[in-house]
């Protein structure tokens, strides 16, 4: 199980808004796929998937605000 957390995006950036999910809970994802898009100020940031597997849980949805370090989703890793 891999936790997907909001990374450090720069000095003074403490929170972001989830602007887009490329996948939904239950989808298979590959490592480095664009998983979700975050927005801060006048910039969007594509968060890559840290692992391959099943996107098992999504805790933050489009329009939600998340803080740096917040776990936004869980990826259940491939058994094989």
């Amino acid at each position, binding site marked *: 199980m891999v936790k997907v957390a909001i990374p*450090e*995006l*720069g*000095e*003074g*950036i403490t929170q972001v*808004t989830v*602007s*887009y999910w490329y996948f939904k809970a239950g989808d298979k994802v590959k490592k*480095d796929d*664009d998983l979700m*898009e975050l*927005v*801060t*100020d*006048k*910039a*969007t*940031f*594509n968060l*890559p998937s840290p692992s391959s597997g099943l996107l098992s849980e999504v805790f933050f949805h489009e*329009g939600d605000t998340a803080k740096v370090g917040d776990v936004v989703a869980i990826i259940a890793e491939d058994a094989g």
Partner: protein
Amino acid sequence: MGFKVFDLGLVDFMQALSIQKKILQEVVVGILPSALILCRHYPVITLGRLASSANIKLNQEALLKNGIVVYRVERGGDVTYHGPGQLVVYPIINLNYLTRDIHYFLRRLEEVAVSFLSGFGLSASKIPGKTGVWLGGKKIVSVGIAVKKWVTFHGMSINISGQDMANFSFIRPCGMDIEMVSLEQALGEKVAFEKIKDRLVSEFKEYFPSALTMGG
């Protein structure tokens, strides 16, 4: 290997976006170190990812009558207008060779524009909390970027010619009730696009010396 400048001339917004994404991919995988794309667009209104379409004052039909199409795109920011009177620059820059700091990059972009405008004797400035570059309370440069694998795309548009500035009245730029101004309006004289592109590229070289040449 140095960075590459792509001058697309007057180009359809979506066509330029497709070229941007191709070049972005080349920078992401290291075929190119970084790149600058310069262009002008046919009249278009674009909405950033979380933009409210309520910030467009005309309906689709009225916009089409004025020759303006509307697209929603993946950049940050609200609504903006692009037209042939603007010089648009899309810096495809690998932040892994600069610093992984999105706000630092945005502020740096604004500094490029401030310095570019100072070359015309204008004292433009940044305003904290209001991304973009301002001249006497009016906006002259709009900024909205996207970042993928720590490589930037989208970018900034500088109002140069006064020719299509009236089209800004169809929107609330960046979701705000603000006035826009162009370089020609500020100077009170005509400016030739061909003469200013090199100046803008030089500013980028000065402000992003290493990020434009490393990698690749």
